[in-house]
Structure formats: structure tokens, C-alpha cells
């Protein structure tokens, strides 16, 4: 089985069997499509409503196991087990079994004194069959055993580039890093690596981020389902992405000052054409209409006839917290009526479903909209898609 990216462009997830077939991570779908079909591999488009719902079920179930939880990503969560006088291995299995029984979600559990070691324990839980999905690295000899056996790139936060610099210092395995002189490594790299070394020795430096920090920039970018060869789809896409970004902006109670708009053609085709523009908004705002207007104007100026555009994006790049906003003496700022209207739009879209009300500038039929040919049913979020049982 494989799962494709947003626009059915790339393979983003592969089952073991697909990996055995030699399907690489982030491989272009069109390049491997024939191979997948020949071996009757199940192909799925991304189904974010389903993934999102399952993820939130997992998170709320995990809340029964610890009062302090960090949702790190859609499929990764940290639980603080401090002050829980329990057998960690047993607790890990309990969590794992509960998620399987309640949600049918298979997970790996890694338990350790620091986040970096917990990530390593989680990786070990998945790689070593004998662990049965749960790995506890609560004592130095246990993490030493693991760290000696893995390359430094397996450590959380160590990318390939960093690994190359570490190799110059004769640091190859994770254990080499754990036993390196932190001050010396820091001098040649950065402070984050020093933290990682501490963490690898079981001293927690990274705390739990229970409240995710507000995003400093908000981007909405997507590829076109069919390449845009006229101005109309480019303008509609700019309007849609501006509206999505504005929605996210309001959700985190921020206002935007500046937006970034870009469009480009396929980098794999001749005459690659990539243009972008940065536009100041008339006043700090979260009004979809103002942001859409600015994004459309920018897109109109960027567009050149004779190109087939592959991708467009709108970013809110300079944003401030709504409560920190100081009123300008000479500029009245966003009128209260706009706040009200946006609140109403958000309420309707929340209760009636995404896109229940939208600006006509986004287009109605959206023939340019992303391709998703192989979606699985939205089993838990759409009444028409709920599973059927025989009786």
C-alpha cells in the first residue's frame, strides 16, 4: 500500500511490502505508477479529514495516561510520566493496547528520561521486533546499548548536513555524540547540539510544549490539479489560499501586516518561470476580503501569458498578536464590522462544513483544484462514508 501527497504528486507513505518493491520515499507517483499497478499495490490519496479525526481520538485517549501532553505532530505525542510510580514497560504496553483496542491504531511507545532519548526509544521499539512496540531506556546501560548501534543521523534533530560536520570531528555513532565533549562540539556547530548531548545522557533540556507556539508565518501553497494556462485559475487559487491563510490567522488571534504571493511553473520543464511579490496591507488585518484583494492584485501583476503554472502560494509573513496591536493615530485600522463579519463566516464554516460560505473570487467549480483520484472514505467524518456492516 502507498499513500500519495496532497495533489497525488508523490508517494509520502509506504507499507513494508511497498518498500520491498523498491518504492522510495517521496518518489514521483507518475514514475512508479506502472510498477505499483503491476504488483496490485493499493494506492490512496491523502485523506486528511480521516487522519485528523483519528489523531484527535488518539490524543484524547492519551490524556487518560498523563495530565501533561505535547502534541508534537499529527502522529507524534509526548507524555510526561513524572511522578507516576509505575512499571514503565507495563505502562507502555497498557497505552499501546488501549490505542489498539479503542481506535485500532498501532503505535510505538518509547519511554526515557529526556525527549531525545524517548524518540530514540520509540525508534528502537519499532525496529527491534522483540520489543513488541514498547521500549524503555530508563538506565544508562540500556541507552548505551542502543546508542552504540545506531548512526548519529538516527538522533532527533541531527540532519545529514550536521552529521557530515560531526564526522569531521570523528563522531559517527549516536554513542560517539553522547560521549563527545559538549563544549568542543558546540564551538564547531551550534548550541542545539550541546543540548542534544545532554539529552542523550538522560538529562532533560527540552521541556514539554503543552501549548503549541503561535505560528510566526502562515503559508497556504498548493499545486494545481491541472496546470494553469490562463489568468482565471491563478486568480481563483490566490483567492482561495489567501482565505485559508486568513482563517488560520484568525484562529490564532493574529493580524497580518505583509503578505507574500508566488507562482511558478514546473522546474522539470523548459522555460522555468518563478515569480513572487511582497505586498504591504493597508492596516494590520485578519479580514479575508482585504487579504484576498491584495493577493489577487499581486497574482495579476506576476502572471505572464504563455506559461503553464504548476503551483501558487500565499503567505502571511509579518504577523502580530491581535492583543498587542496598537491603534494608529492616523489610520483607523480594521473596522469592528469586519471583525463581526469574519466571526460569522468562521462560525458558519465551522458548523456547516468547510467552504459553506466563501468569496466568489475563489471560483465555484474550481477545475484547477488539486487532484485526489484515490481517496479512501472519510469513515468517521462524513455520514455518507460510514462503514457498512452485514447483518
Amino acid at each position: 500500500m502507498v499513500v500519495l501527497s496532497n495533489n497525488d504528486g508523490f508517494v509520502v507513505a509506504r507499507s513494508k511490502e511497498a518498500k520491498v518493491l523498491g518504492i522510495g520515499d517521496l518518489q514521483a507517483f507518475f514514475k512508479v505508477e506502472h510498477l505499483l499497478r503491476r504488483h496490485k499495490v493499493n494506492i490512496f490519496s491523502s485523506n486528511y479529514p480521516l487522519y485528523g479525526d483519528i489523531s484527535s481520538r488518539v490524543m484524547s485517549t492519551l490524556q487518560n495516561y498523563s495530565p501533561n501532553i505535547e502534541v508534537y505532530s499529527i502522529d507524534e505525542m509526548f507524555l510526561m510520566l513524572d511522578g507516576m510510580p509505575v512499571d514503565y514497560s507495563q505502562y507502555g504496553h497498557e497505552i499501546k493496547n488501549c490505542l489498539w483496542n479503542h481506535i485500532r491504531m498501532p503505535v510505538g511507545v518509547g519511554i526515557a528520561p529526556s525527549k531525545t532519548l524517548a524518540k530514540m526509544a520509540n525508534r528502537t521499539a519499532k525496529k527491534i521486533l522483540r520489543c513488541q512496540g514498547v521500549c524503555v531506556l530508563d538506565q544508562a546501560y540500556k541507552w548505551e546499548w542502543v546508542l552504540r548501534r545506531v548512526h548519529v543521523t538516527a538522533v532527533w534533530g541531527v540532519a545529514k548536513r550536521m552529521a557530515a560536520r560531526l564526522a569531521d570531528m570523528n563522531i559517527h555513532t549516536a554513542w560517539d555524540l553522547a560521549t563527545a565533549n559538549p563544549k568542543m562540539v558546540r564551538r564547531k556547530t551550534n548550541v542545539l547540539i550541546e543540548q542534544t548531548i545532554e539529552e542523550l545522557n538522560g538529562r532533560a533540556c527540552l521541556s514539554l510544549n503543552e501549548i503549541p507556539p503561535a505560528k510566526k508565518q502562515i503559508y497556504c501553497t498548493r499545486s494545481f490539479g491541472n496546470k494553469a494556462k490562463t489568468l482565471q485559475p491563478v486568480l481563483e487559487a490566490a483567492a482561495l489560499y489567501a482565505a485559508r491563510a486568513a482563517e488560520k490567522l484568525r484562529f490564532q488571534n493574529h493580524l497580518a501586516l505583509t503578505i507574500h504571493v508566488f507562482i511558478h511553473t514546473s522546474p522539470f520543464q523548459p522555460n522555468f518561470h518563478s515569480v513572487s511579490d511582497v505586498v504591504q496591507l493597508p492596516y494590520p488585518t485578519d479580514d479575508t476580503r482585504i487579504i484576498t484583494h491584495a493577493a489577487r492584485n499581486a497574482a495579476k501583476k506576476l502572471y505572464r501569458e504563455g506559461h503553464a503554472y504548476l503551483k501558487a502560494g500565499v503567505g502571511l509573513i509579518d504577523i502580530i498578536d491581535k492583543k498587542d496591536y496598537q491603534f494608529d493615530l492616523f489610520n483607523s485600522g480594521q473596522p469592528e464590522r469586519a471583525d463581526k463579519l469574519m466571526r460569522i463566516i468562521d462560525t458558519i464554516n465551522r458548523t456547516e462544513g468547510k467552504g459553506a460560505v466563501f468569496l466568489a473570487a475563489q471560483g465555484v467549480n474550481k477545475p484547477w483544484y488539486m487532484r485526489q483520484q484515490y481517496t479512501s472514505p472519510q469513515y468517521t467524518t462524513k455520514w455518507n462514508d460510514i462503514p457498512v456492516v452485514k447483518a
Partner: protein
Amino acid sequence: MKLRYLGDHKNQIKLETPLYLSKVQAGFPSPADDYMDKRLDLTEKLIKHPAATFYCRVSGNSMEGVGIFDGDLLIVDRAVTPQNGNVVVAVVDGDMTCKLLDTINKNLLSANEKFPPIKIGEDVECLIEGVVIHSIRSHVCTG
């Protein structure tokens, strides 16, 4: 420079009428205001484990004896431990099916004479997916 006493600042503000009276514009405040309660919520009443509860639709008539008909909506709770006599959703040979659980004789029973029991264990692969805690049928023709 001479200073002249003008009186306390407070005394300068003169209220013609009490503030709250002038604010009432129309109508009489609802006597129910203090007694507002949340409207009854069916999901809150029916579902004890929201994260572990799923919905599915019935197809077929093998469970009519316990009042589950074709097209009914099932509320399935995975957090409930299946017990003898429970209506369950089970996967039998890859198909999801709704049956009565008989743990004593290790059978999945139908609530309709026309359907024989299904023996669990030996050659039939069976996995209990969850316990049917409610079934909902519509009595108007909407579908």
C-alpha cells in the same frame, strides 16, 4: 499665580438618571435568563467513550429479532469489553458483520432463524471490533 478651587472632580459629573435604567431600550428582560440550561445533547447521553466510538450502517436482516433492521445506524463502542449476549460488530473472514456474541459456545448468533450460527475459532478468523451500544432507526422516509 493664583489658584482657584473648582470643587472635587467627582462632583463635576452629574448623573441625571441611574445608568442601568437608561440602558434598557426595549422589552422586558426574560424571566428565564437566570434559569438557562444547556439543551439536551443526544450524543452526550448515548456515548460514554467518544474517542473510541464509531458509527456504521446496517445492511441485511439477520438481526431483526433484536430490533436491528436494514439501514439502521449502529453506535459501536470499542472501549466496552464484549460480554456474552452483547450485540457486537465482528470481522469474519474479512467482512464486517453484526451478530450476537455467545462466549459460552463460542458462536456468533443471528437474531433470525434463517441464519445459522457462525462458529468462532478453528477455521473461521474472527475479530470482535466493538460492542453495539445503541441502534437508531428512522421512522420517517428520509434515508
